[in-house]
């Protein structure tokens, strides 16, 4: 098992390298960079006093070097103006727009981003599991039809529109400010029990909004998987031998059906992280989402690059956890390497 964990983590290294390169490529795509755009703006308005300072900044952040060198300096595999000082060394870069290190700009938003994403994944697990089992064991009952129907709608409704609709109705019916992280009166207040409860209450709606489509997909999958297993002969045999229904279900078919269920959640993680970014923008949650949008718009390259990388790493870790869970559940995987499903 330990061997498997190590191998699985080691496999992430090349993936991370490729992802960091792609990220850098994407944020470098727009013509020019933040500082040279500013220089151009200053020059066109006739000011040249601060151009020298900006030129100095360009050198400081090695924006004047060739592309590959810049990339390696950013990652920390090449000597920049200050020696090896990149992501690997723990320097996340500089945000030009805020004139602060990236660390300080998004530092406060990171914990909430992580908490929100993991809460969503947990929500999907906890909700879809019992509902999927219910739906499969009571196939073609009213409950099953209802769940299937709601699942369809949930799957099709884009989460940011759902957020918008919910915001509107909450505002209209309860006069509640659903957006934001806490009720306005707690902002800038020291942490207290009430404030914590307010934060929790405000986290529920985004969690549901982001998790809905994932939950709907998972219910469908678990139902289909379980239905396949329930018609197998070993189930009939077990029933004939007098096993109790509940015992029969938990001991045999459920164990078979749970495997693809967990593997699928791993596949869903990227779309959930995607969802959390845009839902945060709509509901103005202080996660990395809104910062990313403004950074992209102002071409604040190191900031947006770091956020993109962070979001990608978050999904990778999520997938790692789901893979490890699979390995715990299924000895074939930790011994043989890959799932056959």
């Amino acid at each position: 098992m330990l061997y498997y964990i190590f191998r699985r983590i080691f496999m992430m290294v090349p993936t991370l390298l490729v992802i960091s390169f792609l990220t850098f490529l994407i944020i470098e795509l727009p013509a020019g960079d933040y500082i040279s755009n500013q220089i151009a703006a200053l020059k066109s308005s006739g000011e040249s006093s601060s151009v020298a300072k900006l030129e100095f900044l360009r050198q400081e952040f090695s924006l004047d070097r060739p592309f590959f060198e810049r990339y390696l300096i950013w990652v920390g595999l090449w000597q920049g103006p200050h020696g090896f000082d990149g992501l690997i060394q723990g320097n996340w870069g500089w945000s030009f727009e805020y004139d602060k290190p990236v660390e300080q700009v998004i530092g406060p938003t990171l914990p909430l981003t992580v908490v929100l994403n993991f809460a969503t994944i947990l929500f999907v697990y906890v909700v879809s599991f019992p509902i999927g089992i219910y739906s499969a064991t009571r196939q073609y009952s009213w409950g099953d039809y209802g769940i299937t129907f709601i699942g369809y709608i949930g799957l099709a409704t884009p989460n940011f529109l759902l957020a918008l609709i919910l915001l509107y109705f909450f505002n209209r019916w309860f006069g509640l400010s659903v957006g934001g992280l806490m009720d306005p009166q707690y902002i800038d207040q020291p942490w207290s029990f009430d404030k914590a409860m307010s934060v929790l209450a405000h986290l529920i709606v985004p969690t549901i909004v982001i998790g809905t489509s994932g939950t709907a997909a998972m219910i469908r999958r678990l139902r289909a998987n379980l239905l396949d297993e329930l018609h197998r002969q070993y189930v009939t045999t077990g029933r004939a031998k007098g096993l109790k229904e509940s015992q029969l279900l938990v001991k045999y078919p459920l164990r078979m059906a749970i495997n693809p269920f967990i593997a699928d959640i791993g596949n869903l993680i990227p779309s959930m992280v995607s969802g959390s970014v845009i839902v945060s923008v709509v509901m103005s949650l202080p996660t990395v989402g809104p910062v990313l949008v403004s950074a992209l718009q102002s071409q604040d390259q190191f900031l947006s690059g770091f956020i993109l990388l962070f979001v990608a790493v978050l999904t990778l870790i999520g997938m790692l956890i789901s893979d490890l869970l699979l390995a715990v559940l299924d000895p074939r995987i930790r011994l043989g390497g890959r799932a056959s499903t």
Partner: protein
Amino acid sequence: MSIEMKDKTPQRVVEHYVDPTPFNPATTEEMTAEQERFYQASQWQIMWWKFKRHKIAVWSGVILILFYLCVPFAELIAPYDANTRDSLHLYAPPQPIHLFHEGSFVGPFVYGMTSEIDMETLQWVFKDDPTQVQKLRFFCSGDDYEFWGLFDASFHLVCPAEGGTMFLLGTDRLGRDQFSGLVYGARLSLTVGLIGVFISIVLGLFFGGIAGYFGGLADSVIQRSIEIIRSLPELPLWMALSAALPVTWSPVWIYFGLTIILGLLDWPGLARAVRSKLLSLREEEYAKAAVLMGAKPKRVITRHLLPGFTSHIIASATLSIPSMILGETALSFLNLGLRRPSISWGVLLNEAQNISVVTVYPWLMAPVLPIIIVVLAFNFLGDGLRDAADPYK
């Protein structure tokens, strides 16, 4: 016991009967006309029959066709030009269509609106004016437009009464008609998915074809890159890529840039399906025969293997259109995609970004409805197509 019984049964002499007519083995397997039709039908015909049985999918298809009619005929259907501003009707509420005025039938009409300023909130307040009956005109001339960029025209299917207004879904902050916006917006919103899917199919076929047919190193390289791309969250990447589109580009180029971006990240799913299908079809006898007869890989793939899974590709492509429509909507909503004067449903929704505005003027959320309907319809249609793609099951 049994011997006794046998003894007691009376001996009956049965004459050995032989049918004089010659025996035709085919008669034992004679089919009803129905069956015969089924076995003689082509694969596509059987798919069509199977698809027709999926009622929801058929209805979804009909609804989608109706929506897609807006693409070529937006100018005719919309009562206004989507960028026409009516400065007297800013944030005007929707005007419902009535048929009866004071108990008597008048035909479709709307009540005129009176407007006054609320001095407390400093907002225009619009009220129905029951004395003004504005009958809608049909097949009439209204706002000018250039039809398909070919000739000028001013013909509309329906227009407001002379001097009257007809804001079926209200107006936005500049007095632009929301309903006309939706009709015009369908043009970009609905085609974004089609072009994007086309790009994604081309890429998916190409990479999936190479991986599945040649196997070996090419397969593992492509598989690894597919895994990496699939492990990335789509939306942030879309956002980053579309932020990279130069601001100086004309709306048309921005639109094509967007569709390419949407297609660029979508192909891995399709490539995977193509690869696994190819891997299994490659082992079929007819494919082997073609290879042995000296057909080149290109011919084997396109002539012998591709027809085997075209239907699957169509089905899975249909299922990935909605995610592209939503991608465009999300990007335009965030100001990272299309911008005015281009109009898409996402651009219209952009007005609804500020939730306090939406609470006062809820009709700004109108684009949500067609988006959800179209996405649902595509999902049902895709499900129906996927079931029909394997008609022999």
